[in-house]
């Protein structure tokens, strides 16, 4: 199994600012995943973070808006840049261990 700690758990931010979300895993994992859950919507994959290489972004998500760091096998950050109210969502970090995906508790972001 894997235990994921995500920080912050929630934040209220001004539009135009940026927020960095941290994800710490208690074991080494090759890939880490970042998801977004907009209000009333399902989870959508933003990108896959690989250690030692650039993140791989899904269609509709770009590095300038969601830069990701992966400095080692247990840690990753996702930055939401130049925020607008449309970025208000829950952001989740996830890892795959064996055949199971584990999730952080999520970061609830409100942009005002």
């Amino acid at each position: 199994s894997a235990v994921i700690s995500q920080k912050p758990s929630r934040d209220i931010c001004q539009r135009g600012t940026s927020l960095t979300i941290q994800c710490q895993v208690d074991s080494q994992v090759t890939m880490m995943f970042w998801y977004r859950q907009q209000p009333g919507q399902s989870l959508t994959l933003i990108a896959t973070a690989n250690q030692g290489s650039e993140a791989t972004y899904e269609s509709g998500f770009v590095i300038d808006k969601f830069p990701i760091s992966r400095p080692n096998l247990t840690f990753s950050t996702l930055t939401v840049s130049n925020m607008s109210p449309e970025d208000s969502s829950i952001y989740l970090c996830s890892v795959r261990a064996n055949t199971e995906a584990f999730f952080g508790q999520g970061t609830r972001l409100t942009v005002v």
Partner: protein
Amino acid sequence: AQRVTQPEKLLSVFKGAPVELKCNYSYSGSPELFWYVQYSRQRLQLLLRHISRESIKGFTADLNKGETSFHLKKPFAQEEDSAMYYCALSPSGTSYGKLTFGQGTILTVHP
């Protein structure tokens, strides 16, 4: 591209009644299918996966490749089953690990 559809956003049943949460998928290869559950104020967690063919908390799900379905069933619902349920698909090959989620079904079990 893969897609997961959960046609019911809300499902209400009474305690002791059978419950079925529907899930249909589209994917050209051989996917892995999962059911994830999120109880109130808890994080998303795995309920069951099709490859293990197990029963967890009385829930079962059978992969029907002909109908491209992976419905979740429980013969006798309990109040503690009230939660948000997500059906999810993981592709094989190089995209292994990525999950595509359905829209989710909120299950409410009334006493």
